[in-house]
Structure formats: C-alpha cells, structure tokens
C-alpha cells in the first residue's frame, strides 16, 4: 500500500496526462471521494483536485460511521457501489447495530473506525479506479462561459483555474465538495483565523467570489465544531462505564460476509457524563467564547457542550469516549464539542468523572462557513442556473460523513451523465433515504446543518437497511450505470433467491393443528380450520426461518443464507403493500416535471401573487415537490398541472419530426420514473 501512495502522490499538475476531463471533482473529503469514484465508474474521465493528497478520506471529526438513519445512507451508498460501506468494513474496530430491539426498519448499523485504516482504504480505492486521476492543488476559480442555448441555465462551467500559475484545466462538468472551506473561519476562545479545518490552508477566496458574484448564488452561513482529543493514558478507566461491541460484527457492505477486524480484537467505548462543574466552567468562560456568542445557526442535534448546558441546565449530559484507532493513543470525547480557550477546555474536561487528570492532545474548535442555499439545486444536485456545475456535501448545508458521501455519489453520477450527454437522474424519496435527503434539501432548503433521521422518511417501513440492494443496486446497474456487473449479479442472485424462498413459503400451506405438529413449541392462536402459509407463520414473533427450514428441509434449507432477510420480508410485507399506493401517487407527481426556466411571475395561469412568490423562491423541480411546499394551495397545483400538461403537448408536437439528441432525452424522461427535466 505504501508503494501505491507514492504513485498517487507523484501526480502533479504539470504531469497531467490531459488538460481536458469529462468531470473535475474539487475536494477530497467524503463527498469528493464518492463523487470522483462514481463519475469514474460511470465511464467519465475524472480528475480529483484536492489540497493535500494524504488528507483524502480523512475523518475530520468523529471516528465513526453509520448509526440510526446514517446507517441507512451507508447501506444505500454501498448498494450503488460507493466506497464508504466497504471502507467502514475495512477500518471498523467496534461494530454494533443500534436500535436492535426496535424493529429492522430502524436498525442503525454503526462502527467506530480506525482513522488511519479508513484513509488508507479510500486512497487505495481511488488510486485503483480506472479513468480517475488525483491532483494535488488549490482551485483558484471556476471557468464560466455563456450557456448552451439549447439547455436551461444562465451560465456554463467549462473548467477550473488552479492557484499556482493560472494553470487551467477544462471539463464538461465540475463537482464542488469544498466542505467547511468556503469562506471558512476557525474559532477557538477569542481567536479567529481563516480556514476550514485546523492544520489546512484556507481555500481561495476566488471560488467564493465566483459562486456569489459571477453565478449569483445565494449563500448562507452555518457553524459546527469538534471536541478536543484526549490522551488515552490520562483517562482513569475505572471511573467510566465500558460498552461492548456486537459479538458478531455485521458488515456494512452487501458484498462482504465479514469485516476485517476479528470479533475479539474489537475495542471498547466508554460512557461518562457531565457534572455541575462542567456547567460552571461553561458559564465562567462565556465571555471568552466568540463562537458561542454569534448567532450563526448550529445543529440542534449536535450542539456544542456550551449550548447543551445552556439550553438544558442542571442535567448530566452523556459523554462517550471513543477509540480513534488500533494504534492511536487518543480518545474522541463524543458530546464535548467546544470552542472556549484551550486552558478552559482543560478545566472543563477535568470536571468529568474519569477525566480528572486527563490531558488534551488537540483542543476543540469551532468552524463557520458559507453554504450555498440548496434550493438552487436540481434533483441531480446541479446548480439550476449553471450548466455543468454540481455541488455536494457541507456546501449544501448538511452535516455528517454519510450525508456528504450520499450527495457526493449522486452528484458524481450526474456530473458524469452530463459530461457524457446522458439525461440527469433523480432518486425518489419513495425509494431511498438518499432521495429523502436530496428532496428535503432542494425543496425545503436548510436553516441549520441537515442531518438524516429515520423520522424524515415517510416510507420507513419500505426503506430498510436490509433491502437497500434490492431498492438500488438493480436500478443502479440497469438505469444509472454506476454499479459494476459483479455487484449487479450478486443482487440479482439475492433477489431471485428471496423470491423463490417466499414463493416456497407461500405454497407451504397447512392447517393450524398440522403446523402445531410440525412446530410444537409455537402457540398458534388461529382457529382449527384456517390454513396458514409459511409466510403467515414467519410473521409470528417466535418463529424464525431456521425453524421452518429444519421442519421442511427439502424445500427451504437451501435458503438459510437469507434467514434474517426472509423473516423481515415476511413481517414487513403487509405494511409495504399498504404503502405502495401512496408511493405510486407520489411517484406520479414526481414524474411531472416543472421546467426550470419558468418565469412564475408572468406565467399565464391563474395563480395568486403569494403562490407565485413561493414558487419563484423554491423553484420546485416537479409537481410533487411543489405540493410539499408550504403555502401552495390545491388550486395552484391544478393550475400548474394544467400548465405542465399544456406545454408538454405543445412541445412534443413539432419536435417529433426531427429526431435529435434532445428528443431522445425527452423520450427517456417520459418513460422513466424519476427522471427530471433539463
């Protein structure tokens, strides 16, 4: 692996094989890595530009992946052949499935990661990806020209200009994943310095200028923070509560049957909590704390310890001490993000049981950064006004590795599709958490850093972590083009086996007394005359697929590989069927595209001024997105429907005679479920 690193690092701008790429990805964080890999998988010649090659795939904040809601995203990214699931299986050192007792739809696969191993895996993956070149450099600005008049938009991106010596590289599309670096400032105590992460140079002001002044994009400002890192040996572990990982680690990736870390080699996490002393230090240091005094929006669900004790005083707040890696001497204190001066940080942590003599390795700090209001994006994560420009990650107002990676993947897919003259694609909120994430961002915008929760997904019973492959891998290969045939074949095998197994269970029909004979330990409450299928039986709380398989080995034993999935399918089947009708309704509405260049103020349909303003502000991509906007009346929806119908008919007429590329796109649009207009 060391050898590969040398190769990777050796690429410099002057040595680039070409000066023209299909896709350029700016930034090497979680969004950038997935975007570059996805674009290359799609078949696009891709260039990843990052400030420092060795920080590609770095875990800037917490050393963990997945969790409730976030675990769903990791599974979906993996189902679309992304990196982070496999990277997590490689780097994980503590695996657990959260919410184990609350039902498979909300299980949260999660792992503590070894920072070093995670970075290594991502860097090696990117290096091994055909058609992907990695370049160390700083992007000075975007190259912008006149738009292609056949497509909507006011500008077109044609490439980037690097900071050193005005070196220009052109590309058909550019994905920006600048994280917290867009006009980022770092806060610690009363000192403020420009930058997006401690130890890294601030990004150029030119990029920010291009986005706001040249492209006219609306930006907002958000803040976040990270806790101090604690020297492991300075913690008294007799005073904190150890937490064990799962005995049998469950891999994130659908391709893996086991993880790299041996079960018995997993590390521990520790739980401790804040004391009244912590609250006192926070209050005493308030006047020295610039970050907390500002009113920039921070996340409500990942607040600094300062805002936690100020908002909910007089309580003990949990603090998790998490390992940073197999060979790391540090601990990550989850829940102690803080921005006070370093000496006060030390005072604070020493008020916490187990940390009375703790030492700080690196102090915590806060970051404030610009984000581009995501309502200016299409469902393909393209800036609506600018052809070929895609945004992903924190630049869109989200927080979290998984949220960033999910957007990165989808922006990479669509940047490649744009570059290769393929129509853009959207993921529906009815089929994936990634779809929920993107739809929430682009149709509602953000007022605080956006994080995924399972409660955001209306169709939670259908969008489960266990079936992400069935939902996305098949589509990812057949329609999108970002999935390898190897993974596709595996997904097809899984789908066929599950179908066969369910069919076999369905034909297994016995009367209640006969089932009791076969499974004497199960109490079957049904009346004697009812006949029950294997699927019915599997819905019983105490019946497992293994039990049925050992009762009927001849027809079921070959499916025991899928025991858990079959059990889940049986229990959720009814609820998914119920959701289907609603899902179909929403998909129909999402299928009705609203042209992106509508001037809502002059649209010749009957709409109130208020409705016109809302539509103009949010510019929904589809009728479905419009119905979810607050303040849109049913009457307005009908009038819009009429407009879509009307213009659709008018445009389809004459174009049918001259078959050109655009025509193909439109045809495909009509045929495809979740396509979106250009």
């Amino acid at each position, binding site marked *: 692996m060391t050898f590969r690193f040398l190769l990777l690092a050796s690429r410099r701008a002057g040595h680039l094989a070409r000066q023209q790429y299909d896709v350029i990805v700016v930034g090497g964080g979680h969004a950038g890595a997935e975007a570059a890999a996805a674009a290359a998988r799609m078949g696009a010649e891709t260039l990843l530009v990052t400030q420092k090659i060795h920080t590609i795939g770095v875990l800037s904040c917490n050393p963990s992946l997945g*969790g*409730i*809601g976030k675990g769903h995203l990791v599974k979906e990214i993996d189902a679309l052949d992304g990196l982070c699931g496999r990277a997590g299986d490689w780097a994980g050192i503590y695996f657990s499935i*959260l*919410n184990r*007792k*609350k*039902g*498979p*739809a*909300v299980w*949260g696969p999660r792992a503590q990661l070894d920072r070093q191993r995670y970075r290594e895996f991502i860097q090696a993956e990117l290096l091994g990806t055909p058609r992907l070149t990695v370049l160390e450099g700083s992007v000075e600005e975007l190259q912008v020209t006149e738009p292609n008049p056949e497509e909507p938009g006011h500008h077109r991106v044609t490439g980037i200009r690097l900071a050193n010596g005005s070196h220009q590289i052109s590309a058909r599309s550019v994905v920006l994943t600048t994280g917290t670096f867009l006009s980022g400032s770092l806060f610690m105590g009363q000192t403020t310095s420009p930058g997006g992460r401690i130890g890294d140079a601030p990004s150029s002001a030119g990029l920010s200028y291009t986005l706001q002044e040249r492209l006219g994009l609306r930006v907002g400002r958000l803040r976040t923070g990270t806790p101090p890192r604690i020297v492991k040996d300075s913690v008294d572990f007799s005073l904190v509560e150890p937490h064990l990982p799962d005995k049998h680690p469950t891999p994130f990736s659908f391709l893996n049957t086991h993880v790299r870390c041996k079960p018995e080699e997993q590390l521990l996490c520790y739980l401790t909590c804040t004391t009244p002393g912590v609250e006192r230090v926070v209050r005493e240091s308030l006047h020295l704390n610039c970050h907390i005094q500002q009113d920039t929006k921070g996340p*409500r*669900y*990942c*607040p600094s310890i300062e805002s*936690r004790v100020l*908002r*909910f005083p007089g*309580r*003990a*707040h*949990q603090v*998790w001490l998490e390992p940073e890696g197999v060979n790391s001497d540090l601990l990550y204190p*989850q*829940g102690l993000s803080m921005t006070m001066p370093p000496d006060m940080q030390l005072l604070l942590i020493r008020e916490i049981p187990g940390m009375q003599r703790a030492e700080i390795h690196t102090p915590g700090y806060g970051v404030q950064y610009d984000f581009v209001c995501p309502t200016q994006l299409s469902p393909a994560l393209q800036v609506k006004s600018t052809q070929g420009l895609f945004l992903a990650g924190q630049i869109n107002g989200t927080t979290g590795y998984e949220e960033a990676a999910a957007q990165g993947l989808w922006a990479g897919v669509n940047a490649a599709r744009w570059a290769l003259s393929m129509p853009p694609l959207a993921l529906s909120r009815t089929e994936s958490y990634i779809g929920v994430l993107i739809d929430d961002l682009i149709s*509602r915008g953000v007022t605080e850093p956006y994080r995924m*929760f*399972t*409660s*955001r997904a*209306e169709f*939670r*019973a259908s969008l489960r972590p266990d079936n992400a492959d069935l939902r996305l891998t098949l589509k990812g290969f057949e329609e999108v083009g970002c999935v390898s045939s190897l993974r596709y074949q595996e997904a097809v095998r899984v789908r066929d086996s599950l179908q066969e197994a369910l069919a076999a269970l369905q034909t297994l029909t016995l009367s209640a007394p006969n089932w009791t004979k076969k499974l004497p330990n199960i109490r079957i409450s049904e009346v004697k005359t009812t006949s029950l299928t294997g699927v019915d039986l599997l819905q019983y*709380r105490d019946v497992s697929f293994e039990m049925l398989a050992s009762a009927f080995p001849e027809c079921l034993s070959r499916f025991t590989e899928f025991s858990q999935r079959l059990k889940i399918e049986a*229990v*959720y089947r009814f*609820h998914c069927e*119920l*959701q289907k*009708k*609603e899902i179909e*309704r929403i998909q*129909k*509405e999402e299928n009705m595209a609203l042209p992106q260049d509508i001037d809502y103020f002059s649209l010749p*349909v*009957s709409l109130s001024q208020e409705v016109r303003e809302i539509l103009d502000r949010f510019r929904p991509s589809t*009728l479905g997105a419009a*119905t979810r906007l607050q303040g849109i*009346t*049913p*009457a*307005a*929806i*009908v*009038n819009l*429907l*009429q407009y879509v*119908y*009307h213009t659709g008919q008018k445009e389809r007429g004459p174009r049918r005679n001259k078959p050109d590329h655009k025509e193909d796109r439109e045809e495909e649009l009509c045929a495809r479920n979740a396509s979106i207009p250009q």
Partner: protein
Amino acid sequence: MLPSVHRGILKAAVHTLRTRGAPLNRVMSICDGVPVGLADAETIFALSSGHGRCGVAVVRVSGPASATALRSMAGLTRSLPPPRTALLRSITEPQSKEVLDRGLVLWFPAPHSFTGEDSVEFHIHGGPAVITAVLQALGSMPGMRPAEAGEFTRRAFQAEKLGLTEVEGLGDLIHAETEAQRRQALRQMSGDLGRLYQDWSHKLKRCLAHVEAFIDFSEDELIEDGVLTQVDKSVCDLQADIERHLKDERRGERLRSGVQVVIAGATNAGKSSLLNTICQRPAAIVSPIAGTTRDVVETALDIGGFPVLLTDTAGLRDSPDLVEREGVRRARERVEQADLTLVVVDCAHLPSDAQEAAAFLLAHLKSILPETAFPPTRCLLVLNKTDLLHGDQRQKLDWELRRVCGLPPVCLISCHTNEGLQDFVTVLHNSVKTLCGDPLSGAPTLTQARHRAHLQQCVTALAQYQQYRDTDLALAAEGVRLALTSLGRITGRVGPEEILDIIFKDFCIGK
C-alpha cells in the same frame, strides 16, 4: 283533518326501519392517500346534485369498485344494466338488504364516463334521510370513500376527458370548493368539536415525537424509558376517547335509524290521542278509560324529512294489575332511552295559579323523567285538552308558563279540536332537527361522513401501535403516524419537521 299548511312538514309515512348500529365504513384502508391531483385506485362517491331540499338527488360513484356498488345496492346479482340506460330499481343497503329508496340507476363503464373511470349514478329521492342512508351504505363497502372536493373533476382531467378550456376553470372551481370547505370546516372547528380534534391532534403529535425521539436518539442519549410508558398511556386514552366520540356522536345514526321520541305522562292525559293525531291514523286504541294503553306502541314517521320513531307508552301510575305494571316498567325504560320525551299533561289537572302550576309541572316532570335527564333539555311539555279551558284561561296559562324558568318548552294543544297543533309540530320539528344536525346547511352529512371515516382510520391506526409496541417500534410508530395523518385530514397536515421541532424542544439531543 290537519290544516293543509302542516302537510309539508308533517308527513305521515311509514319509514323504513333499519338495523341500528351497523358500523359505518366497515372496511377501512389504513393507507388512504389524500388525492391532491392524481387518480387513485380508490372508488369515490359523493352527492353530486346541489345541497338543499330537492325532489331528486344524484349520488355519483367513480372508480373500480363502482360495478360492485351498483350490483350490491341495486340487487343486480348477474348482469350489469346496459351502459348509459336508466333503470328503475330498489336501492338497498348492501349488508342488510333493506330497501333504502326506489330510484333510477345508471351504469357508465370506462372510458365512456365523466371521469373516464367506471361510474355509477343513483338518482334517488331528495330527502336528507334517504341521501344520508345511501351515502352511508356506499361508505360501508370496501374500497369506497367519500370524495374530496373537486375530485371527480380532477379524475376527469387526468383521464384527459376535459378540454383545455374546461380545465381553465377547474382551478377556480376547486378553489371555490376548497374555500367553501375551509369556511365550513372553520365553522365546525370553531366550536367544542374543533377544540376536541385539535387537542387530539396535539396529543398525537407529542406521542409521535416521543416515539420518534426514542427511535432516533435513545441509543446515544439520555431519553428515559418512561417516555414510552407515557406514550402507551396517551395512545390508550386517545383511542378510548375517539371511540367513545364515534359512538356518542349519534346524530348520524339518529338520521339513519330515526330519532326516538317517547310520549309519556299520567294515565288518561291523552298520550295515545297525541300519537294518533301526529300520525293521522288510529295507530293506538284510545278510550276514556285510564290505563287503556298497557304496552308500548311504536310508529315510524317522517317529520320534515327527518325519520322519527314515535313511541306511545302506558300511563305512569302504581297499578295492582300485573300486566299494567309491566307496561309501566317498559314505559320508564323507553323514557330512559329516549332522544326526546313528550310529557303530556291534562290541563284540567293544573292548579289555576300560574306559580303553583309551574311547581306542579316540575314535580310532575321529576316523577316521569330519570334524574339524569335534568335539566330537561330533551323534553317538550305538552298540555293537552285545552278545549276544556275557558275563554282567556288558555292564553293566560300559556303566557305565564313561558315566563317560568327551568321548564322545557311548553305547547298547549287540544287533540280533540287540533287547536295549537301547528305550533306544536313546528316546535317538534325544530327539536328533531337539532337532534339530527341540519343536513341541509352546508352538507354536513358529507363532511361528517368524511370526519367519521378519518376518525375511524385514526382508531384503527392506533391499534397498530398497540399491536407492535413490544415487537417492532418502527411499525408501532407507523401506526401513530398514520393516526396523525388521518386526523390531519380534519385538522390540517403535520409534517416531519414539526415532529422534529417537538423532539428538540422536549429532549436534549447531543449526538
């Protein structure tokens, strides 16, 4: 004979008695989507003719279950009628097979219908009782639900049945309808009922927020286990409250099976004469002998369009006769179950002083009505035999009794001469109307049917919470979410952001 003015309001007709308590909307789909603008596979129905009294009312049905509806309600077991041809049929309740009305049915198979879907029209008589009965019968069939405002037109639009010029007006039409609906909802919402629904919605929102908080955050956070125990209790209470409300709110049922009006009083006060006078036929035997009526005599009537079940009872007195004693027991039982009691008093027995008369009447009421009926709001005092009073005695009594507090409305009549009967009938009609709710103002029958359907769904969904509470919290939460969605159809939509707001307000989430 009654003066002709009465005939409009007081129409003696044997009203079809239907089984009481048949559940409305027996099969309820848990997942019913709000039709915002696109066709569903669901079948919808609505009164399509204007609201208000009319000779003929048209109830329209559209969707895949239309044919089934037509078959089971028009008694067409084998073949459907020829398309677009009117057929005179008895229209029956699908389960009990009881005849609701006799009217025309029309069958419009897809795509040759207004909506482009299979459609059926029932042309029935325009009385509110008939309309309500037919709508409720439709609602009791699987896959059927009351249409939302403008839904027929929307479906027609989607089937490309409407030209563009017609569609131009559609938005305005829906605007007008939703506007009317909103105003009506506001009217209904401003009262106690509205407050009740809002209160439920608020409680459900908190329940959902707390379950969601438990699902999304409890692994990392200090979310006390007690949170779920509280939700359990709230869900249980809510379920009981809504069920009780669905049962208690008998207006719809009264409209369907008739208002129970019971005539009670002392022997020989003229109760049976009153019954015969109201139904214009000798339904009960009358004689000057006290204790003539020994059992309960029931007659179904239509009063101003409202079905009424009028019951004559034995005169209340202590009698040594075993049969009569049983009659008195039954009489008291009926009075207890009555929606409205007509207490009949012989004028001649009244003290001549007005104050004393009032005291006498109050005492008399107490001897007849059960204690729970006080203050006597569901009661009319009928002072019979005014023909036996002299000259201005009647007027004076009437005038003075009206000024006494604590007495129910008083009507002075003579069953012998029909004096005062017109006023009495008006008072009776108004009382019945209040008890049924007035279906002619702003079509509340329709709205009520929708409310009931949504409330029923809410209860079903809450049962899902109970069912999965211990095995799968995600599915349990789904139940609360569906319940909130159903209630939201009445009180307004609740989005995920609102739930998250409550979560962050109530819990300190730090991860």
